[in-house]
């Protein structure tokens, strides 16, 4: 008896010891990995991915390819290691187009061990991917659920309205029935032949219309009403001819301004860089997209695949995200122009953006909230002129107005001013 309890106690002791130890190592490891992750994100992720090659090679399994001491000296100063004649280092350098890796002398050996621990941990097949896919699917289901909920609600409202209409009509019919019955009782026998029950309702209707058409006042008002209705409708249509306000075409790529300018806070003029310096705000060429999208593929939302919309950029510019090289089979993206001034009107973006300092949103509306862009302003002449009448010119520290002010000062002080001073010999004054 005593023996058994002794053995039991011993076993229990060792089990708890093992448990505590493993907990402790787990905890320490978790700490390491966490620190390694933040260091990796700060110092390594600009060039290395775990699963995919970015600028440098993918780091998956790096601790199996090289031993720890070698990795530490490589990360501390790869160029020094190459210069010292280390064969593995030279081979690695040659294999990757002699791309230099910056030295990281500030990372301690423990830092590097933590980074390597993180890389090892991240190399393991992660259950997170499946979770992400599920999440995405769930989101989609949610979205379609929203739509069907909305439609269902609408249907119920329509049904309720229909029921009410039927109720009201029922009541009206009953009242009319009663009145007619009452009237019929007082109708004289002589008219009975004409008004007999077998008569078709169509004829009754025509008769009624005939009776009404003899009422001149009523006819006058009906005609007046129709004329008024048609002229207001016509007037509205005429005012809206050629006004594209609200125009929201379907673009070839589902580019979301709400994501890029709203969530990611990228300046409008990062992409539309022509707005500050030229007549056109310029639709960015694809190389501008690639400034970010050579790294951003949104693959975490698409099970590790490149997002289909980003893939459209790659197809157009013939970029292979795996080898990170451009091909020659390029084709333009056919964006659909939304804001289109007639060719008879001249508009210059730089004059409004740079000289006047007007915000893009003043004319284009809250673009940073638009998943798909629509035309916010009517872009009519009236709309332009209303703003030009109100807007005060800011001539202070504004080089555009310097000459104008100088000319006016000269005029005020009574100096001689020639037409040339006011731009009278500019080519366009005569040869427009």
């Amino acid at each position, binding site marked *: 008896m005593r023996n058994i309890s002794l053995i039991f106690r011993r076993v229990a002791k060792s089990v708890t010891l093992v448990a505590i130890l493993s907990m402790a190592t787990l905890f320490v490891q978790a700490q390491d990995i966490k620190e390694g992750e933040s260091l990796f994100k700060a110092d390594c992720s600009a*060039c290395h991915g775990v699963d995919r090659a970015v600028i440098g090679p993918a780091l998956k399994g790096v601790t199996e390819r090289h031993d720890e001491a070698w990795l530490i000296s490589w990360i501390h100063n790869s160029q020094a290691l190459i210069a010292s004649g280390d064969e593995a280092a030279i081979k690695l350098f040659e294999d990757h187009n002699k791309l*230099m890796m910056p030295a990281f002398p500030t990372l301690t050996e423990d830092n590097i061990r933590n980074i390597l621990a993180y890389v090892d941990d991240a190399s393991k097949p992660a259950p997170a991917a499946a979770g992400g896919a599920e999440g995405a699917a769930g989101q989609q289901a949610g979205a379609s659920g929203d739509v069907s909920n909305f439609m269902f609600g609408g249907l119920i409202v329509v049904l309720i*309205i229909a029921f009410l209409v039927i109720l009201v009509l029922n009541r009206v019919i009953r009242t009319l029935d009663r009145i007619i019955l009452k009237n019929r009782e007082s109708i004289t026998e002589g008219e009975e032949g004409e008004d007999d029950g077998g008569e078709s309702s169509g004829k009754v209707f025509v008769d009624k219309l005939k009776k009404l058409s003899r009422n001149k006042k009523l006819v006058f008002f009906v005609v007046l009403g129709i004329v008024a209705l048609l002229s207001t409708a016509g007037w509205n249509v005429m005012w809206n001819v*050629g006004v594209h306000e609200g125009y*929201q075409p379907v673009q070839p790529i589902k580019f979301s301004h709400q994501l890029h300018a709203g969530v990611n806070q990228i300046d409008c003029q990062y992409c539309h860089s022509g707005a500050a310096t030229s007549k056109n705000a310029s639709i960015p060429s694809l190389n501008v997209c690639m400034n970010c999208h*050579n790294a951003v593929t949104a693959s975490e939302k698409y099970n590790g695949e490149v997002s289909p919309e980003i893939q459209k950029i790659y197809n157009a510019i013939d970029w292979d995200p795996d080898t990170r090289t451009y091909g020659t089979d390029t084709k333009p993206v056919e964006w659909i122009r939304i804001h289109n001034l007639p060719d008879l009107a001249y508009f210059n973006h730089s004059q409004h953006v740079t000289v006047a300092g007007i915000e893009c949103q003043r004319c284009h509306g809250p673009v940073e909230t638009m998943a798909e862009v629509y035309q916010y302003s009517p872009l009519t002449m009236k709309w332009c002129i209303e703003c030009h009448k109100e807007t005060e010119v800011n001539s202070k520290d504004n080089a555009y107005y310097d000459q104008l002010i100088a000319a006016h000062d000269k005029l005020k002080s009574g100096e001689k001013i020639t037409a040339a001073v006011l731009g009278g010999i500019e080519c366009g004054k005569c040869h427009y």
Partner: protein
Amino acid sequence: MLAMNKIRIIGSACIAVALAAVVSSCGDGRTTDTGMEFSRNMYDPIGYNPDQLNNNFANKITAQTPPAGTVPIGFDKYPYENTMEGYEEASANFHNPLERTEKNLKDGEVLYLRFCQPCHGESGHGDGSIVKLEKFPPPPSYATGNSSRGGLMKDLTDGKIYHTIYYGLNLMGSHASQLSPEERWKVVMHVHELQQR
């Protein structure tokens, strides 16, 4: 008599409601056409817009790439190649022609905030707005980082910074299409400011 019509009236009411429901359920409230237009030819220029489809060319692009070797009037050609040698040459021979005036510095800051800040950060430490959202990896800090071409970011010269803006490096793309040569020099000026921070 009306009792018979009752069914007809109720029926027509039901049809009207159903019709209204069907008609109003079409479309999602967006306007995918431009509405009524009069004399469309006054909207379309006689000449081609640069971004317009053009059937006169095999690739149907109006903005054709100029023939090789063509140089626009007033174009500043950047003479250094995108190699390590070109980079070092630019560092040795290419210097900022702009004066360090308050206005140039201010312009440089505005341009930096627009074109560089999303990654490099307002203070230049690689903590830009898009990096903070963890959507793009951080570039090295101008003040404390190491350059992947060797040396400290702090010691980058005029020519080296200009070279990188012009060609891009690693994950950074070329910003030559977005910045004119003068604007690039203004940005270089501001980056020098950030190297001190």
